[in-house]
């Protein structure tokens, strides 16, 4: 059995209509989310600095819609 990550919010994520565009901008980024990325994702969602020893990367799917230009 594989482990997965599921995310939900009532206002749409960027993925809603801009995800394809985002993914082409982030070609180098691995499409899978690694466990180590969770700290980075939570930090961005809460508008915090990354923890000192952070090695994870943020994933573009978690951008809120209005932050995209």
């Amino acid at each position, binding site marked *: *059995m*594989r*482990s*997965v*990550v*599921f*995310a*939900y*919010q*009532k*206002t749409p994520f960027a993925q809603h209509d801009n995800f394809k565009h985002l993914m082409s901008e982030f070609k180098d980024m691995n499409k899978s989310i690694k*466990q*180590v*990325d*969770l*700290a*980075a*994702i*939570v*930090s961005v*969602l*809460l508008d*915090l*600095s*990354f*923890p*000192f*020893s*952070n*090695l*994870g990367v943020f994933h573009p799917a*978690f951008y809120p819609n209005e932050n995209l230009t």
Partner: protein
Amino acid sequence: MTTVRIKGMLSGGITNFFETSEEFGSSEVKEDNVLAQLRKRNGKRDDIVFYGDYIWSPMFGKYFDRHQEYESLNVRDLDTLDKNVASDIYKELDNGSKFSLMLAHIIGVDSAGHTYNSQHPEVERKIIDSEDILHNIVDKMDDQTTLIVFGDHGMTTDGNHGGS
């Protein structure tokens, strides 16, 4: 397994091999982590809440403003912890989601895997239970909240830690 994973997820680092020794008695986390950053910014406000397995509290207990831990040593008891944690979560959400970060840890699926195996009907029942909890959370949460659901490890066919 679990303590090492939890530390890794909150600090964003690769936890090293030697920390497996801490599996048998988790101690306070010294590395910088998401909760420390949140506390540094917000000070002591009703910010970080935790409901779930008691193994979290020796490591991160000092960051929690409201919390309730339940013991999980009896892997044959698949329901008590999940039910208690679910009702704690609902209380927080019904009370107007007054938190910056809520951590909740339900353990029924993992316990069912350890006690039986991944194909056992009890595992299926716990997955359905967990889905019910998620369904209720989605119903109750407000528009400013993001829900993130993840497992700290996969499950092998025999029901133990592993998979990817």
